[in-house]
């Protein structure tokens, strides 16, 4: 088609006949339509049922409603800050600067799972802790952890299908038990994970909760060697079982209020424990616990000594994207990781453009 161009610019070929010009115009139209169609295809315009970040966040919104300015999941929370003091041991596993001997500032956020920012506190709800480690030279490590020992879903699709199955039925206002049973029947990995989760008694508060990375990651050491890891924040505060007489009836924020009271009394501390996977340990399945006997290393202590309401904390406007990793850490092949990154970003973008509404834990509540 381009042989014409070797002719000199001044030497005009004879004009085309009307019909041949028309044919060529139609050909150009077809080429343009193909290019535009390819672009729209890549954007998912022709696959309306494919799971996308937007459709995932829509499902959260259908389950818990839209609460202006709040996260679409883990909506109820408070901001915290403090520092991480590395003991230098972790440098043997990863070249990440966070593991060099010394101290880095940390911003974090405690939360409850679910999209309702005014949900009543309860010991059986999923507890979350998002952390941002501010490393030298503008590097960052962000991690979003929960108190579950394993994650209930293997894939983003399973998570989504469960969200859809547990949406309130418009007739009864409650989730349909048949749909939930059907989901469980077709997801044995979820059933196995839930039995592990239910065998762990919840602790009394946020301060004595252990938080887990759930997903596996790779640590890369200075020599370039990679090992699969998971991590846990193990509380220094002693375990106490959640009491049955817990008092959500008198104070719907009682767990957050206890957290505020204890952090104002003394700084709260957690040991960062790295669990080192062995060959054959699944790195792509967060529903499965790694067997006992895996090597564990205490790499330092997290100290949280300051607490803020959502309104006054910088944590509100931070996306605790688990794939913001420093050099020396890398994502595993767990399909949840990329999906979490995509969905957190979608949730962040939606709430960023909305008017902020007051959070359940008000600035006054934090100061009292």
């Amino acid at each position, binding site marked *: *088609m*381009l042989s*014409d*161009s*070797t*002719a*000199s*610019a*001044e*030497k*005009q*070929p004879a004009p*085309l006949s009307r019909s041949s*010009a028309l044919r*060529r*115009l139609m*050909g*150009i139209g077809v*080429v*343009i339509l193909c*290019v*535009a169609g*390819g*672009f*729209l295809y*890549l*954007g*998912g315009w022709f696959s309306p049922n*494919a*799971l*996308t*970040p*937007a459709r*995932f966040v829509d499902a959260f919104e259908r389950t818990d409603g839209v609460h202006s300015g709040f996260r679409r999941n883990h909506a109820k929370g408070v901001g915290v800050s403090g520092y991480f003091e590395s003991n230098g041991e972790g440098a043997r596993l990863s070249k990440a600067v966070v593991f060099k001997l010394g101290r880095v500032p940390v911003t974090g956020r405690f939360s409850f799972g679910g999209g309702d920012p005014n949900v009543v506190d309860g010991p059986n709800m999923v507890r979350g802790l998002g952390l941002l480690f501010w490393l030298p*030279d*503008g*590097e*960052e490590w962000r991690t979003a952890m929960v108190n579950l020992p394993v994650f209930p879903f293997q894939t*983003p699709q399973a998570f989504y299908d469960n969200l859809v199955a547990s949406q309130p039925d418009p007739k009864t206002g409650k989730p349909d038990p048949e749909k939930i049973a059907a989901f469980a029947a077709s997801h044995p990995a979820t059933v196995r994970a839930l039995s592990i989760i239910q065998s762990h008694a919840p602790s009394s508060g946020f301060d004595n909760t252990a938080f887990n990375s759930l997903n596996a990651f790779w640590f890369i050491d200075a020599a370039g060697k990679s090992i699969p890891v998971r991590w846990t924040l193990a509380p220094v505060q002693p375990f106490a079982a959640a009491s049955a007489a817990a008092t959500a009836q008198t104070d719907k924020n009682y767990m957050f209020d206890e957290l505020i009271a204890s952090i104002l009394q003394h700084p709260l501390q957690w040991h960062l424990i790295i669990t080192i996977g062995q060959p054959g340990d699944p790195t792509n399945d967060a529903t499965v616990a790694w067997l006992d006997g895996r090597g564990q290393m205490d790499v330092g202590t997290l100290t949280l000594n300051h607490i803020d309401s959502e309104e006054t904390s*910088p944590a509100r*406007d*931070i996306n605790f*994207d688990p794939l*913001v990793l*420093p*050099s020396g850490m890398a*994502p595993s092949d767990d*399909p949840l*990781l*990329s*999906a979490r*990154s*995509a*969905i957190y*970003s979608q949730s*962040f*973008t939606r*709430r*960023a*453009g909305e008017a902020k509404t007051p959070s359940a834990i008000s600035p006054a509540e934090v100061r009292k």
Partner: protein
Amino acid sequence: MNTASQQTQFTVLMRILHWLMAAMVLTMLGIGVAMVASLGDYHRLVSIHRPLGIAILIVVVIRFVNRQFSTLPPFPASMSSQERFVAHASEVLLYTLLFVLPLIGWGMLSAARFPILLYGPLHLPPILPHSVTLYAFLRRTHTVLAYLLFLAFIAHFGAILFHTLVVRDGLFSRMAPWRVRAR
């Protein structure tokens, strides 16, 4: 002007930069529209999108500066003054979008207080203060301008096909990747 009228092609450097830019921008548009709809590939795509955007920003600045110091081949005699005006305006639009889109991307990540990773520990400093309101505005603008860039590309591509296949005035030869002999 005598020498300029004998020049039928853009300089070799200008043509290299043009085709390099064409490949980068088409890749970028495809990655951009795919990554926002993707779960499993999101991280991989976004890890290419950011450094590629910064590379485009660098190349567009080099192209713009180089263009100021280069002699451009004349438009074919077949093009009317209106057509020349439209062609020139579309070039201004393309250059502007190719410069502004990466800057907005960089700015919106800055406003979101998100690290702008290029490769390994290599990253860019923020150019705007942390403000989610600003982020939300820039994020929307990034999408709108990206679609506008795609439409501008389609118009550019369509116009060249039209001139080459229907008008047959040799417009394409000015930017052809190979050498076209002057008369």
